[in-house]
């Protein structure tokens, strides 16, 4: 176990170094930060001078070296726009994104699992047919159309949920501004989390259905039937457990999709989280912030996948992580 975690740590550091190098290499293609933070009327000479002061005229290698020296001490730079250390800025926005993703995942688990199981157990049932049809549609409708539709129906027409922002937040233990503890905060969560869940749901419904159907055909399930075990025990203990193995793996990979969709969802709903921050940073050419975001997201990836592997071991004790060279 310890060996496994250590290996993962080395892996994480390696991933982050590569990401930081890539984000530095593309920096020049993103635009000129100085131009973005000055009036159009400032003379080119003056701008050139400021570029010089910021060290933007040095070669990429020199700039990267400067960055790396500071990064070792945990300083990834200062945001041009927020004027604060980039990690502070990102971690300030992290709770909003985590809460949004959390609510979306709850919705996905709460709806996809029963729907997938139902579709597998009773394939001819009208509800399961509907579920399968809807999941096909869900896969093919772009998320921003879903979002616009939801906003139109639920905020403009019915005034049931607010159309943007995070609403009121409460501070928890002095380190977390949460929207989960007030009515206003929860109301603001409704539409964005449904949108985000909508993006992830179809794939899980279909996956659970397919896996479950396959498992139900296997020998040990037939044996369980002939042994006369109760139906509920067969479906929910014996079959479901083995169904969940690939679902968990896919879930880990889908963490990437989740990050991509939070960027979209947050931009549409003006949700003050990390994805929104990233889009904003791109439009402002806030290069230190862009680089730091990519590095942090890379780290989050490695961490979630480590967790997924650990859970894998819990669900299926025959898997020995350290032996797989993971």
């Amino acid at each position, binding site marked *: 176990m310890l060996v496994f975690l250590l290996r993962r740590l080395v892996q994480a550091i390696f991933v982050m170094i590569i990401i930081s190098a890539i984000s530095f290499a593309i920096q020049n293609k993103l635009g000129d930060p100085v131009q973005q933070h*000055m009036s159009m009327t*400032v003379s080119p000479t003056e701008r050139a001078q400021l570029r010089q002061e910021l060290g933007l005229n040095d070669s990429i290698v020199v700039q990267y070296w400067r960055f790396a020296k500071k990064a070792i001490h945990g300083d990834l730079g200062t945001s041009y726009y927020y004027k604060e250390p980039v990690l502070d800025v990102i971690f300030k926005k992290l709770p909003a994104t985590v809460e949004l993703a959390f609510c979306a995942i709850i919705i996905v688990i709460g709806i996809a699992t029963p729907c997938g199981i139902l579709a597998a157990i009773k394939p001819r049932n009208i509800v399961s047919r509907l579920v399968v049809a809807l999941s096909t549609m869900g896969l093919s409708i772009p998320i921003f159309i879903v979002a616009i539709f939801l*906003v139109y129906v639920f905020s403009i027409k019915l005034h049931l949920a607010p159309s943007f922002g995070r609403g009121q937040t409460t501070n928890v233990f002095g380190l977390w501004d949460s929207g989960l503890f007030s009515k206003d905060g929860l109301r603001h969560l409704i539409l964005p989390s449904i949108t985000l869940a909508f993006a992830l749901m179809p794939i899980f419904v279909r996956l659970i259905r397919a896996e479950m159907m396959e498992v139900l055909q296997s020998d040990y399930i037939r044996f369980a039937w002939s042994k006369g075990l109760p139906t509920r025990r067969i479906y929910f203990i014996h079959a479901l457990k083995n169904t969940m193995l690939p679902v968990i793996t896919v879930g880990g990979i889908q963490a990437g999709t989740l990050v991509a969709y939070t960027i979209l969802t947050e931009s*549409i709903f003006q949700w003050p989280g990390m994805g929104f921050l990233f889009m904003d940073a791109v*439009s402002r050419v806030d290069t230190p912030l862009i680089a730091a975001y990519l590095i942090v997201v890379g780290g989050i990836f490695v961490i979630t996948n480590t967790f997924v592997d650990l859970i894998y071991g819990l669900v299926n004790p025959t898997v020995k992580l350290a032996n797989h060279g993971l």
Partner: protein
Amino acid sequence: MFISALHHLKLNHCRFFARAFLLSITTLLTCQTVSAVTLKMAFDADPVSLDPHEQLSEGTLQFSHMVFDPLVRWKQNGQIEPRLATHWKQITPTTTRFFLRKHVHFQTGNLFTAEDVAYTIRRLKRSPDFRAMFDSISSVVVINKYTVDIRSTNTNPLLLNIMTYVFPMDKVFYQGRDEIIKFGNSFASQRVSGTGPFIVQEREPGVRMVLTRNKDYWDTKSKGNVDKIILTPIKTDSTRLAALLSGDVDFIFPVSPIDIERTKNSKGIKIITLPTGRILLLHLNEKRRPEFRDVRVRRAINLAINQQLIVEKILRGYAIPAGQLSASKFLGHVDSIKPEYNLPKALELMKQAGYEKGFRVSMMAPNNRYMNDDKVAQAIAAMLGRIHITVDLKTLPKAQYFQQYDERAADIMMLGWQSDTEDSNNLFEFIIACQDAKSGLGAYNASEYCAPSINEDIKLANREMNPEKRARIMQQVEIKLHNDAAIVPLYWQYNTWAAKNNLHIESIVNDQNYPFLGDLVIDEK
């Protein structure tokens, strides 16, 4: 009010009454806060800093008009209105004396005096963003507590226009810790003391800013009744509009042209549009393309582009087709120059120039800077196709576009320009003057067109005090540009705001988009 309560105490020597009075005032105050009028607004950007001199941008100036007061400001009819300067007098050809408003206090309680004005202008001359505009001002001399002399290096016809950018800052509060830092925190970027109608209460950059009414605001004649402003920047057009339609905010800017009709039909919502001086144009790079050095080709391109159609179809009528740089309210505007569309004539000119079969050019345009900029660019590419010019169009987000613009990376480039001084000369200086990196002249002249006579005229117009003579000089420039077909003017954009019906925004918005929120009246339901 508490001060008057203390007076009460002194006069009566009766503590009981005093206490009762204080109590009644407190209840009165709490009653007022219950019925406080809150304005929730969503604009496309928020101020980048609390320092009014850090960046010359729309967001900063909107902020300055909330938390500070200018010496003078523009009225909707194009006249200048006194604010912290009550009146002024030219005493020598290069010196103007400004008389200041008395009994005005900053938010810190410091009294506003001539020292603050002198201090602010000196600081403006240090600001990288503002100093070009204040170059023409040589010195500020404090005459007495409420009088300053502003001296210009030359006669200065635009002095008052420039004074609309002077928002006196609290000298006692800022002095000694007032460095202007672009990419880092400074004292002034986090703390603020102005004389304006609102006080900053909380700010989360990019997310929201909350301001409350300055209870001691000097302008007691203002009918404005907004007690609290919550400003949320919303970048996406559709989200911003949805926020208004769902009732989450009361006031938005801008509204995309395609949404205007729909918004107009919504119950309880009104749309206000104002024509602006923001010109959109195309630069034809003569250095990159020998074809563009031929005036016949440039004229053919001008004739092949149908401004009227672009305005009608893409901007839904919310712009004015342009045949020159200066909008009609600017002195340099020439009534007789109209945008002309004549395809046969354009084809004929191309034939005469020897390009009957056309040629291939590259074009770049931004896709998130001006209203529908990418669609306009596509329409232009199609229109040029009709005179056999094949256009390879590339549209880019503004951050990358202006980097390309600086490198003059394409043969045809799109540009929008709003004159900071509300005057034609500013357009000429940046868009069409011969390039000079040091002075910044011609910084956006991506056509590489250079007529020394225009540079001379710009210099003259910067000094000429007689408005008629000045107009003639600037009109001469427009006529020359038109005759040489040096650029392709497209249209002057409209500004569009939308608000709930009970907000009287029509009297407080203006074409520069610095709404005077201190004067905003909201009818309570």
